[in-house]
Structures are given as structure tokens and as C-alpha cells.
């Protein structure tokens, strides 16, 4: 009942890939990509997590039922984050008859109508 036994070399390869991706995400963090910095950082993190799940956690070699369970975890996470953010990320897009920007952005001091992160605005550097 040994299941799938991966060669040691494949584990070292995955480890190397994870370390390279860690280096890339640190390096990219110092390059100003405007509003793309956040999606790039999250994209790299998702790639790393996928490698860990598929190879270190053996999901690639698991039964269909186990794969379904793995998928379920992320299906519900996407619902939790995605559906909540459809509200908060789009509040700035709506303009009300009175001329006010999105209601959700009332707490922000600058640029109330754009959903772009304030870190990129001129006032960000201190």
C-alpha cells in the first residue's frame, strides 16, 4: 500500500522552484508596477501554493475524491473573498445623483472615485 512514491529529485526540483519564486516575489516588490504589484505578488503566491499542494501534498497523485475535497476548500475561499470584494472593490465605480463618489470610500481622504490603491497616489511617499 505504498501509494505513489515520487523520486527525491522531484522534491528537490519543487523546492528549488519555490525558492526561485520567493526570490522573484521579493525582487518584484521593489519594482513599481503601479496597481499591478498586488496582483503579481498574489499570483506568485498562488503558483507556490499550487506547487506545494500538487507535489508536496501529493494531490496530483490522489484519488478523484481527494482532489474534489482539495478543490472544495478553494471553491469556498473564492466565494468568501470574491463575492465580498464584488461589493467593496466596486463602490468607487458608482456615482450617485448628488455627485458624491462611492459611499464606501468616504473614509478615504484622497481620490475618492478611483479604486486604485492610495500607495500609488502622489501623496504616498512620506
Amino acid at each position, binding site marked *: *500500500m*505504498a*501509494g505513489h*512514491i*515520487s523520486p*527525491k529529485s522531484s*522534491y*528537490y526540483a*519543487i*523546492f528549488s522552484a*519555490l*525558492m526561485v519564486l*520567493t526570490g522573484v*516575489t*521579493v525582487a518584484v*516588490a*521593489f*519594482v*513599481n*508596477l503601479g496597481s499591478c*504589484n498586488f496582483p503579481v*505578488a*498574489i499570483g506568485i*503566491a498562488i503558483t507556490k*501554493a499550487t506547487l*506545494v*499542494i500538487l*507535489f*508536496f*501534498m*501529493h494531490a496530483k497523485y*490522489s*484519488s478523484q*475524491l*481527494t482532489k474534489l*475535497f*482539495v478543490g*472544495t*476548500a*478553494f471553491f*469556498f*475561499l473564492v466565494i*468568501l*473573498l470574491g463575492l*465580498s470584494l464584488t461589493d*467593496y*472593490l466596486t463602490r468607487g465605480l458608482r456615482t450617485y445623483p448628488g455627485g458624491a463618489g462611492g459611499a*464606501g470610500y468616504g*473614509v*478615504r*481622504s*484622497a481620490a475618492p472615485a478611483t*479604486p486604485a*490603491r*492610495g*500607495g500609488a497616489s502622489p*501623496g*504616498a*511617499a*512620506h
Partner: protein
Amino acid sequence: MSDALAAHAGAHGAHAHHPDLQHHFDTLEQQHEAATLGMWLFLITEVLFFGGLFLAYMLYRIWYPQAWAEASLELDIVLGAVNTAVLIGSSLTMALAVRAAQTGQQRATVVWILLTMALGLTFLVIKYFEYAEKFEHHHVPGPTFHFEGPNAGPAQIYFSLYFLMTGLHATHMLIGFGIMAVIAWMAHKKRFTPEWYTPVEVSGLYWHFVDIVWIFLFPLLYLADRAHHFA
């Protein structure tokens, strides 16, 4: 092994089976599959447990981007990156521990698990120094909290989430450390065989999950808006 099998079979009368096969399962494969599924089911609840905190992080980040950018600069990116490498390294040793158990290498299993524990401990020690630095700089939310500039209020929310998320993660590390101590002891006692190594595999799943949580915490907390301060 064969002695144990025989003794167990004797106690059961006529039917002989692997000593680690529970009676409500037909085969070791089925038992292994059930245990793996059970751990994944637990990990689904863990994903949503941490998911709630990730959602809180996202919402406050959308509300207070300025404070988020300033506060994230206070974290030590070098310590964060080193800890990421340490934890990924511990995932490698964990995967190799499972492989050693699968191939019946008892001693190697013990060694890889002890290495995994050592790397886990390294992570926690580095985390301790990071926390100590936060106390020194009054970045711990509460009456003594201090943050320069007009964003002190939201920055305190950032550090609340920082301590909640990294603290919950560190708690998982401590629990994982305890689990690994038990697994190392079982491996030392030669409890695992290529036919039955389920505890190594299943606790490995937990360890890798904790690694994955950090893979997301690192960019969210340490790297967040760094680039925009060097533009």
C-alpha cells in the same frame, strides 16, 4: 512484523489481517484514503478559518491604503524572506520524511522529521525576535501603541491584523511541532512500514498547509506596498 501479525491473528481467532488495519475498513488502502480525506476535510475548515482573516485584511486594505503602505514598511523584509525560505525548507524535509516512511527507511524518517522540527523551531525563534522588535517600537496594538503621522488609527488596525494572522499561524506551528514530536517518536519505535505510514502522510498534509498560509502572509504583510515608496 510477522510476529505481531501472528499474535494479533491469534487474539482474533480465525481471521488474520494487518495489525494496523481497523475493523471497520476492508483494506489498508481504504483506511489510508479515509484518513487522507478526513485531514483534507479539516484543512477545508482551516482554509476558511484563515480566509476570514484574509478577508478582513483585504477590506481594511481597501479602506486604508495609505496606512497599509506605511505600516507594512515597518516590517523587516529580510527576516520575513528568511522565514519564508526556512518554512519552505521544512516542507521539503517533511516531504522527504513521508517518502522515507513510504520506502521503509525508519532511520531516515526520524532524521527528516527532526530536521523539519528544527526548521520549524528556527521559524518561531525568528518570529520571536520580530515580535520583540514590535514591542520595542510600540507597534503592539493597545494603550502604548504609537505610530508617527496621521494614520496612527488605521495603522493600529494593520498591526492588530498582523499579530492576529501571524499569531494564529505561529500557534499552528507550535501544534505542528507537537504533532511532529509524536510522529518522530513513533518512527523511532519503528511503528511505520511501507504498508502503513498514514500518520506521517496525514500530519505532513497539516505541516504543508501551515507552510501555504505563510506563503500568502509573507507578500500580504511584508511586501504589500513597498514598491511605491521607492518610485
